[in-house]
């Protein structure tokens, strides 16, 4: 592959045919960091890309309100009221009020049509790092977390992103912090008096240390975990009508998701890895700031970034380079991402691509129309596969039920005949139903395909076989040639 596409494969999603290739690809990559784009998509399969309509980009308050309407309608259906129990009513209820399908489609569209390809790859990396697995209680929140806690923080600091995602209702619900209350808080005292159960829940506290920041290499103790959970007491906020109305009554608005309830929080100082954290709302920010610059966090995440963007087995010097940028710039994400970009470019090693990244790259390169438009949210295409089904068959989705450690970036965890067969089948299906506007020959010329790929592709008589061969070549999958 030529240098433009080698870099776009490792760090981005490939240049679409209509995108002019930049003169200086390295400068382009660094500039991408600071080139945000609104969400781009299509209303119908053959439409020109344009901005996602505002009505399909609700804020948190609107999302919570829709969920309340959904629950209300659901309740009526269980009571058999107003014809709400019919299959049609159920479908309307899902389509109108729930966000999963809309958010999934927006995510896919962005990745296929967006010009901010490098930022989108970073968005996916951090979304995976801060996994929120699917749950019915908070499916409304996942898409919002991706946009507002992850993407909105791409140019801030790791500390800011960490604080935003830790306090997001999606995360607080997914890892049970909505159940977490200080054993000496006023809330627990009152509950105990009434003979009710209430107290500590360490689920988020544990994963905050193990997965999101330090990693087990820091050798923290159960007491550190417990104290982290204590710092997290008071942080909650379920997406239901009761909480919503309570907040609007109290604060006049509900769209700011930073919800803290002193009543549930544990009084007194807490000590984590020797650091004293003060009580109250600011304690969590004090803790996330501390964790964000801890040496174990820096090494854990510098390695993880390198494994995702530089090489499956990154050199120690590459990891150290990223870690140094982290240390010297106090976790400034622009500086950290710049270091990642520099090392991804200077390292000539190939980098294996996730199934979904590969599919996005394939669709951009070939200009295939394989994904529904947003009008299909109301009237699904009879011809195209539904976005959710595509993700399920690919074996990778940010809206699936899964554990909080997220997807591996290493090829060994994806190398199975079943996973590879999916690639063959998706390439075939994209050719047949997506009718690519770019032929395999045109794609090979544009990307500067290597000799091995050209030999593999050129021996086939049909463009369909050529297309499958090209997309499943080691070059396009980010694997080494024989």
């Amino acid at each position, binding site marked *: 592959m030529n240098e433009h596409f080698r870099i776009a494969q490792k760090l981005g999603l490939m240049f679409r045919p209509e995108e002019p290739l930049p003169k200086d690809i390295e400068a382009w990559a660094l500039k991408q960091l600071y080139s945000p784009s609104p969400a781009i998509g299509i209303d119908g399969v053959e439409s020109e890309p344009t901005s996602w309509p505002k009505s399909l980009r609700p804020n948190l308050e609107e999302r919570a309100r829709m969920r309340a309407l959904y629950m209300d309608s659901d309740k009526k259906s269980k009571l058999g009221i107003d014809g709400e129990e019919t299959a049609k009513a159920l479908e309307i209820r899902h389509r109108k009020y729930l966000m999963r399908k809309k958010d999934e489609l927006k995510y896919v569209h962005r990745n296929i049509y967006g010009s901010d390809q490098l930022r989108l790859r970073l968005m996916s990396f951090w979304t995976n790092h801060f996994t929120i697995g699917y749950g019915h209680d908070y499916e409304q929140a996942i898409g919002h977390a991706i946009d507002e806690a992850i993407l909105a923080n791409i140019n801030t600091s790791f500390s800011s992103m960490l604080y935003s995602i830790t306090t997001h209702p999606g995360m607080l619900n997914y890892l049970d912090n909505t*159940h977490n209350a200080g054993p000496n808080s006023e809330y627990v005292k009152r509950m105990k008096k009434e003979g009710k159960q209430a107290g500590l829940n360490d*689920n988020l506290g*544990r994963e905050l240390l193990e997965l999101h920041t330090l990693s087990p290499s820091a050798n923290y103790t159960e007491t550190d975990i417990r104290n982290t959970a204590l710092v997290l007491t008071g942080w909650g906020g379920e997406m239901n009508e009761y909480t919503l109305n309570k907040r609007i009554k109290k604060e006049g608005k509900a769209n700011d998701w930073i919800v803290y309830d002193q009543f549930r929080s544990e009084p007194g100082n807490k000590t984590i890895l020797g650091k004293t954290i003060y009580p109250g709302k600011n304690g969590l920010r004090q803790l996330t700031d501390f964790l964000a610059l801890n040496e174990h966090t820096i090494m854990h995440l510098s390695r993880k970034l390198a494994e995702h963007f530089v090489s499956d087995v990154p050199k120690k010097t590459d990891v150290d380079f990223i870690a140094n940028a982290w240390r010297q710039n106090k976790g400034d994400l622009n500086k950290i991402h710049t270091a990642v970009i520099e090392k991804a470019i200077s390292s000539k090693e190939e980098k294996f691509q996730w199934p979904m990244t590969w599919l996005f790259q394939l669709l951009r390169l070939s200009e295939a129309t394989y994904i529904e438009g947003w009008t299909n949210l109301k009237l699904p295409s009879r011809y195209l596969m539904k976005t959710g089904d595509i993700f399920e068959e690919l074996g990778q989705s940010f809206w699936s039920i899964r554990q909080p450690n997220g997807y591996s970036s290493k090829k060994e965890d994806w190398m199975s*005949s079943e996973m590879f067969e999916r690639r063959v089948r998706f390439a075939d299906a994209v050719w047949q139903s997506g009718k690519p506007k770019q032929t395999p020959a045109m794609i090979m010329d544009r990307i500067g395909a290597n000799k091995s790929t050209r030999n593999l592709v050129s021996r086939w008589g049909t463009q369909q076989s050529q297309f499958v061969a090209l997309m499943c070549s080691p070059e396009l999958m980010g694997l080494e040639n024989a």
Partner: protein
Amino acid sequence: MPNFKLSRRDFLKASGASLFLAGIPLQGYTEDKPPGNISVIILEGGMDGLTAVPPFGDPNLVAMRESIMSDKYLKLNSFFGLHSRLKTLSSLMAIDNASIVHATAFPYKKRSHFEGQDFMEGGGLSPFSQKTGWLGRSLELAKIPGSALSLNMPLILRGYSENDTYFPASIRHSTSLNASLIDAISKVHSKAGSDIFKKIRNKSRLTLGNKPRDPVSLAEYAGKAIAQKNGPVASVIRIPLFDSHAHQDYKDPHSALNHGRNLEKFDQVLAAYKKGLGDAWDNSIILTLTEFGRTVKVNGSWGTDHGFASAGILAGGLISKARVIADWPGLSNSEQFEGRDLMSTIDYRSVCAACIERALGLDHDLIASEVFFESKLPRIFDEIFS
């Protein structure tokens, strides 16, 4: 882990369950089949042994967790009971086809899901020390290479080579695979990638059709596959959502993280295995695996947090006498591990080793040294199978 409240319909669609079938003999393989077959049910998230098999004879049990205790349990003996939703297990114990091992764990004490899961599947001496899994290594020692039915390759079944995966695709517009095209693709990939593309072409033609992929349907399918002549000799099923940090067995029996509900799901999986296996049940051993047990005391939200020892459940026709195998450590504060968890008194690797020995006919010392890298691993075969 999340507090799911899914309807059954949602659960079938998105349960996260997966099935792995392994050790399907390759064509032309002529050696004798091993004496039995082995299936592992992974209870993902940390199954609470004190809820599944309550030691009601221990006076501290009620004191420690009254708010989540059910007063309805099935009595096993004067000390242990079974959760009331484990009806199949109870009936299997009544016909001497199931046993319990209690206060048992892999020797992993740090309470992380991901280290714990890696440890229990890898079976090495520490988390993330092994690229292969204990069942995969056992199948290789028994010289039964073959396929695993799954989308990805689970660590527990990874061997040094020769394993393969299969899971039917449902991709619209994808027609039959062009064998010569796949041959050509395999030739340009380097060794690891090339081997995989070759397998796409050669893989066995097991079909799951459009059956639901929930654990119960998968278990029946696995049972039927194992029962076939030249069928697999090993299978693995994952049941997620045992990580019950909140409301684990309380009030809302439909909450997806309700432990009773998930134990019932396990119980149905057991029943489905038996149904699918048919006569092959007589040569079968099924065992559970979980990364850790849960805290003895209830936490602030009617749940329990990550702990140490749990209970293991064994079932199948290869069990000839129902028993509860335990060296009970007690539940008082001073008897707990680090003042919070059930102490482990039986190394669960010994339980796995006994099941491998019985089902695959391998020698214990070989299993100890080659599968678990622990030549002094105690043999408890007689306690389970005599």
